[in-house]
């Protein structure tokens, strides 16, 4: 039990620090002291920064999985696919856009391990791809459903990690609120169509 408490405290502290500092700036020592856990204990749970960052990402994915799970359950009861998709897209956007730091982090861990494949492994997407194959597969085909989940998540995460300067270049809006609005419209259209239209 205590082990789990330490683990959670460390992940929470790291998530908190990531809001204000870049992943390069954060040190393990820093996280340990913020969590009130000794550095030795920390390194026993997380031997390096990558492992700690992976655990932070897990928490975001866990949150998303719960939300998606609820919508899928409702869909199975009601049969209303379009409403379920709208909710899933909305929640996906919220989880990704509210933590741009995590969207950026996602790409780092695997490269940090000197692995040339991009970003996280596609393994993380598997549960979502499988759900999509089951839910929208009958409409657009199972493989297409999986590829669409890949595409949608790649695009959402990419935009989530863009700076206001990048977004200004893309959409010509300099006001961050207006940028988010145009971006949101694009991503909703993107998600809705790609996940449900043959």
């Amino acid at each position, binding site marked *: 039990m205590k082990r789990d408490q330490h683990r959670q405290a460390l992940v929470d502290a790291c998530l908190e620090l990531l809001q204000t500092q870049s992943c390069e700036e954060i040190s393990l020592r820093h996280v340990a002291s913020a969590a009130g856990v000794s550095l030795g204990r920390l390194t026993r749970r997380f031997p390096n920064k990558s492992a700690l960052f992976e655990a932070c990402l897990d928490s975001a994915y866990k949150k998303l999985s719960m939300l998606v799970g609820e919508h899928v359950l409702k869909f199975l009861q009601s049969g209303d696919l379009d409403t379920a998709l709208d909710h899933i897209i909305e929640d996906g956007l919220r989880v990704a856009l509210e933590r741009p730091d995590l969207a950026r982090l996602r790409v780092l861990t695997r490269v940090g391990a000197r692995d040339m494949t991009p970003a996280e492994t596609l393994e993380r997407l598997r549960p979502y791809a499988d759900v999509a194959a089951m839910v929208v597969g009958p409409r657009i085909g199972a493989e297409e459903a*999986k590829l*669409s989940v890949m595409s949608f998540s790649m695009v959402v995460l990419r935009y989530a990690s863009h700076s206001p300067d990048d977004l200004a270049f*893309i959409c010509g809006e300099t006001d961050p609120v207006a940028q988010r609005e145009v971006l949101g419209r694009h991503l909703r259209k*993107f998600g809705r169509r790609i996940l449900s239209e043959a």
Partner: protein
Amino acid sequence: MSGTDKDTVDRILEATAVLADELGASGVRSRLVAERAGVGHGTLTYYFPTLRDLYEACLQRFYDEALKECLEHFACRKEGETSLQTVEGLLVRLYGLGRENRSIVQMRVYATFSEGEIRPIRRQNVGPALRVFAGLFPELSAAEARFAAHSLTHLLLRFITYPEHEIADLLGCNAEETAPKVLSHLRRTCGLLLRP
């Protein structure tokens, strides 16, 4: 840059691309590049003080080539071709170009995250291609057209970067089957995104 300078730089960039192909971008070392290009290490660091400069130059060369292909493709539209067909044709072309230069495309991911954010694209170079693109779809707002172009480019690059066996694994098919599947997915996405 004089003729010999350009020649040296070309040789260095070529050697970098070949090494990245052989060893992966993370295996590229300045000494190896100098050796392969047949130039002194001092010469290499004169043109490219850090590995990051080298990555950026490689990427910029690839992007310049891709942009040139875009403009060429737009300029040589076939008669009677719809705007969507033009863009689909372009996607196929760029997917091919990207796969030929896969190690350089992968370099972008590696370089960005090992060396910090890099900005190899000179934005002003993208402008002309984007303007033609937006002109093909007058029913879309300017912002929407630019978002669509950006999203499609991003997907193209990402699908090229992912190892085929991983995509195959997710789809439950053979690695050789992924390229046509990805391409047909990109075409479908293109049609859906560019409809008002």
